[in-house]
């Protein structure tokens, strides 16, 4: 079976599309996460392929579905955190030979194909739909929701995994070559840290609105607090360290005004979900969480980096698309789980949504109020990447678990969990999902 990358027609990129045609007819049911680790230790049972299988099987079990009932699989094929298998480095043949292989020896180690997964999950006997959602889970969720809604699959797994190897990030891969093709030839020429464009936007934001980096501290503390209540996350599992204002503000600059903790920590992880039609989901083990809409931004900046003006215009446009397709307004959001890895752009997403009525330039003031899970205005109850490490997955898991009422110590208590929104990654260029406890 050849697995295609999702075509543009599966995404809802434009305003004016109206209510999503499958609103409330697609549901997420099962959630599965593999244990996290800081870096791969070289063992077969902890390679990115193995942890992906673990996460998928947990999602299947969580949903209470027989594996032979699953007919779809959506995969994010890229798994790098910025760490690459160095050219010329000997292949780990013991690991490769521990699995059924594809024609790419690094499949399951430094990347992931649907073919590799199906070869190594023999219980998935009836999968006849596979597709790639490039980039991150936010993208793959849009693809999965649309595929289930369109009837391409009725019970579909979707998975995103990350590998992390020893060494420096973004020093390998294309960056290690003598030449870079296309736009990266200019944007990456000087080797700026990955967060530098966000840092520039944030610096301009502070100048424009008279804000400071110090005003991020409550958000960071709250996010880590929520993350330490996320048992699937890295910090909760390995280093239960809080991130108070002194800790955050004493950290060194990576790309001023982005400091170390404004950059998420790369980890090994895998997260998976089981989606189905609303009808089928009604008979599964967990409470269905209905998809009210998915929306995307494919806006390209005018120049090398998006300006603050472009960021604000596009996050506002994204907010309108999110609400339009879901048939809701900002007032209907119980909580928000927009992306935060880099933390300095979370407020762009928040302001684009108009969450709790905030306008551009007001989010950092909003952070100085009660944004906890116990309050009336929960911000990032998942804790995001700040709270649990680089994955771009926690926000989605949290939406599902909050609306199922099984977020545990992280459960929002200041609001009734009815509708949530999650997605990212970047303010320009992202994919978003609106989740609901009810199909209506």
């Amino acid at each position, binding site marked *: 079976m050849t697995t295609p990358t999702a075509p543009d027609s599966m995404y809802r990129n434009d305003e004016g599309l109206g209510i999503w045609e499958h609103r409330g007819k697609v549901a997420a049911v099962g959630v599965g996460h593999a244990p996290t680790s*800081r870096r791969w230790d070289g063992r077969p049972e902890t390679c990115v392929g193995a942890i992906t299988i673990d996460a998928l099987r947990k999602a299947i079990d969580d949903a209470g579905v027989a594996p032979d009932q699953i007919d779809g699989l959506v995969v994010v094929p890229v798994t790098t955190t910025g760490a690459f298998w160095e050219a010329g480095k000997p292949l780990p043949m013991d690991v490769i030979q521990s699995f059924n292989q594809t024609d790419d020896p690094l499949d399951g180690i430094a990347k992931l194909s649907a073919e590799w997964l199906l070869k190594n999950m023999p219980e998935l006997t009836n999968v006849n739909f596979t597709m790639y959602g490039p980039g991150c889970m936010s993208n793959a969720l849009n693809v999965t929701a649309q595929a289930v809604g369109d009837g391409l699959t009725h019970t579909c797994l979707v998975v995103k995994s990350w590998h992390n190897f020893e060494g420096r990030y973004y020093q390998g891969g294309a960056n290690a070559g003598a030449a870079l093709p296309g736009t990266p030839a200019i944007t990456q020429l000087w080797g700026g840290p990955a967060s530098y464009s966000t840092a520039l936007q944030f610096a301009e934001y502070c100048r424009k609105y008279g804000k400071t980096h110090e005003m991020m501290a409550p958000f960071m503390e709250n996010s880590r607090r929520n993350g330490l209540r996320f048992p699937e996350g890295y910090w909760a599992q*390995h*280093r239960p*360290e*809080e*991130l*108070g204002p*002194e*800790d*955050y503000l*004493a*950290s*060194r*600059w990576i790309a001023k005004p982005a400091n*170390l*903790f404004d950059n998420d920590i790369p980890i090994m992880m895998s997260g998976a979900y089981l989606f189905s039609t609303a009808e089928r989901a009604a008979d599964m083990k967990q409470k269905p969480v209905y998809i009210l809409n998915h929306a995307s931004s494919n806006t390209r900046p005018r120049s090398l980096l998006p300006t603050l003006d472009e960021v604000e215009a596009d996050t506002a446009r994204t907010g309108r698309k999110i609400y339009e397709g879901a048939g809701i307004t900002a007032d209907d959001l119980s909580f928000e789980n927009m992306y935060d890895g880099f933390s300095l752009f979370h407020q762009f997403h928040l302001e684009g949504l108009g969450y709790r009525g905030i306008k551009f330039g007001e989010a950092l003031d909003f952070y100085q109020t009660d944004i906890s899970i116990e309050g009336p205005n929960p911000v990032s109850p998942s804790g995001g990447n700040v709270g649990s490490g680089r994955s771009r997955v926690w926000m989605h898991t949290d939406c599902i678990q909050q609306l199922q009422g099984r977020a545990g110590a992280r459960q929002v208590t200041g609001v009734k969990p009815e509708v949530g929104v999650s997605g990212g990654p970047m303010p320009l260029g992202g994919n978003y999902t609106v989740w609901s406890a009810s199909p209506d």
Partner: protein
Amino acid sequence: MTVLISFDIDGTLEVGDPPGPLTMDMVRLVREKEFLIGSCSDRTLSAQRAIWADHEIEVDFVVGKHMLPDVKAKFDADVYLHIGDREDLDRQYALKAGFDFLWPDEAVAHPHFQPDS
């Protein structure tokens, strides 16, 4: 002679992630020699304090990677030494701040970490 030693944690101390070759007993040894000691790490300040408290080792400072100049300004010593496992984040920062520098495996064999005869 007053010696000040700054320890990186991850990849340097046995309690780091990854663990390094310097044991906490070695740290206790230089503490007993009345060296000024502390940690200089990308770990949060509160996490650094927690590590030392968990091992009941009293330290003179905990700082971030970029704060060695502050340490040198605050403490009067004859020797300033930083021990770490990274070229960019340990050795370069240390030398720039006017510290001597040792890799962790060099430090283990250094006379500072041997009992006084």
